[in-house]
């Protein structure tokens, strides 16, 4: 993977935008999952914004949304887009560049 994402994973603060569509099962699952992940791995150093696209339909085009839910990691490092309900935790963590403490 990209080496720069691993620059300072412990220190970096995360900016995450989650785009959901109302209260669909996928969306609610995604919200629950991301909240868990943030609380578990990024406590105190994350900023999570959850947007209901139904409320701001114009955003869908602006943010180039296709699949929903989509989680966009704005920082640190490169912008990454994660599509799905975030239930595949291993992939989510890898994509977000979170080092899992080997416990």
């Amino acid at each position, binding site marked *: 993977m990209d080496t720069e994402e691993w620059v300072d994973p412990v220190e970096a603060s995360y900016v995450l935008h989650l785009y959901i569509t109302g209260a669909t099962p996928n969306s609610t699952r995604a919200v629950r999952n991301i909240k868990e992940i943030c609380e578990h791995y990024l406590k105190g150093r994350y900023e999570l914004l959850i947007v209901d696209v139904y409320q701001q*339909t114009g955003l869908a*085009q602006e943010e180039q949304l*296709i699949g*929903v839910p989509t989680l966009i990691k704005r920082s640190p490092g490169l912008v990454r887009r994660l*599509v799905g309900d975030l239930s595949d935790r291993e992939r989510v963590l890898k*994509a977000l560049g979170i080092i899992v403490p080997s416990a």
Partner: protein
Amino acid sequence: MHDYTTLPSTGLPTLPKAPSGIEGLDEITEGGLPLGRPTLICGSAGCGKTLMGIEFLVRGILDHDEPGVLMTFEESAAELAANVASLGFDLPKLQADQKLRLDQVHVDRAEIEETGEYDLEGLFIRLGHAIDAIGAKRVVLDTIEALFSGFPNQGVLRSEIVRLFRWLKDKGVTTIITAERGEGTLTRQGLEEYVSDCVILLDNRVIDQITTRRLRIVKYRGSTHGTNEYPYLITEDGISVLPVTSLLLNHAVSNQIVSSGTPALDEMFGRRGYYQGSSVLITGTAGTAKTTLAATFAHEICRQNQRCLFVAFEESPQQLVRNMQSVSIDLAPYLANGLLRIEATRPTLNGLERHLVTLHKIIKDFKPAAVVIDPISNLISVGNLSEVKSMLTRLIDFLKVNNITALFTALVSGRSLHQELTEDGVSSLVDTWISVRDLEGIGERNRGISILKSRGMSHSNKVREFLVTDQGVQLLDVVVGPGGIVSGAGRLAQQQHEQAQLLTAQQEQQRKDRELERRRRVLEATIGNLRTEFETVEEELRRINDEELTRQQTLVRGKAQFTQPLPLQSKRQSNS
């Protein structure tokens, strides 16, 4: 653009349709694409799928005031706008006017990480937002298959695409979905399974190094449609599909007559020329002065101060002008003052459709009163028979609708395809058919001209011999010999023969006159002889008569002397 209310109505409710505004397509589909339903346009690369989609939107906006949404998965909005600007489609302006919305869906596999279940609701929201923002009635998705490269989960994709089409239908927007042609299937991802209302297949074929694009309506649920493959073109004005038989035969006709330029030929027609706006075909074997006849006609049109377009497939303008000067047809002045326009191209330069479109364009710009195409048979080197036929049908229809007199020449060579071309293909389309042919006689060839048909007027049934002289085309009177028409040397021989016969007859007459004279003289001589003889006899008789009379008188006198007494005698006796 077109007025579809004039289409014959069957009285039955028909599927509501949205006119695509694409030239010719609405005629094939009998009105347009299914209104409020999705239509799939599939084809290989370079077929003009995107263009067809964009034209559908732009025409909808300009001609039918139906705003449209273009969702592009491949090209950016700027690229698209630049690509179609050359066709006169001003996408940025339409966007500014809130008539068109462009949404570029960026799909990049590398950026997308699947982390669980998802759906494509984002796409729906974007589309819904765009449609609602401008009240769109038309939507184009170009090319939705790009999603398959971005999202690995095919199951989700397929069910979502099905849902999307259903959703678009519910929205009541007329949609065009473009898709790449697949191996053995209409589309690479089998989208045709999901779009069941109308499927149009575009095809790009190279035959004999000439590319022809063709369009076919694979299916159109709930409607009849043209089932053939129709050639289409991407022209400066967008897509032009060339349907063959769909133009209605209801154009206005003219009662005006135009001269053929050859007075003697005019004489052969009941109304001294061709009807204006009719189509004339001159067929003939090689070297029968078809071009000369055509140029004579063009010259005549220009002489009447009208514009004429001469499409030459065999000669360059300079060559044509020079050659025609040799028979006293001077085209140069008309060429100079713009009344005559000579378009010389090689038939093989373009495909048939391109030729047709070029002609359409020139005719629209130049607005000629007459068009001459010399010769149409050369076009067969570009396409096959039926293609040439359909092209000519369309051309003739176009000219007729515009009341332009058309004159075509065609080379025939007896038993070849060309004969069929003229006989089966074109002759039914043309109004007047003049045949020029060789009359091969004793060691020479002569040209004979005859009228095979002339719709709407009587015409001479004679085969006239015609000469191309220094003074142009001249028709000679018919000379009929014992074996039919005679021409050239035969004609001369026949004339001499007739003269000799005449002379003989005259001499015979004179001889008879002289004979009679002689007879009369003989008769008169005989009469003279007889008369002389008669006179002799008469004289003789008269002489005999006189003698008899004299004799009798003498006799009478003698008798009297005997019966009387003779005093004198007695006296004399007494004295003695």
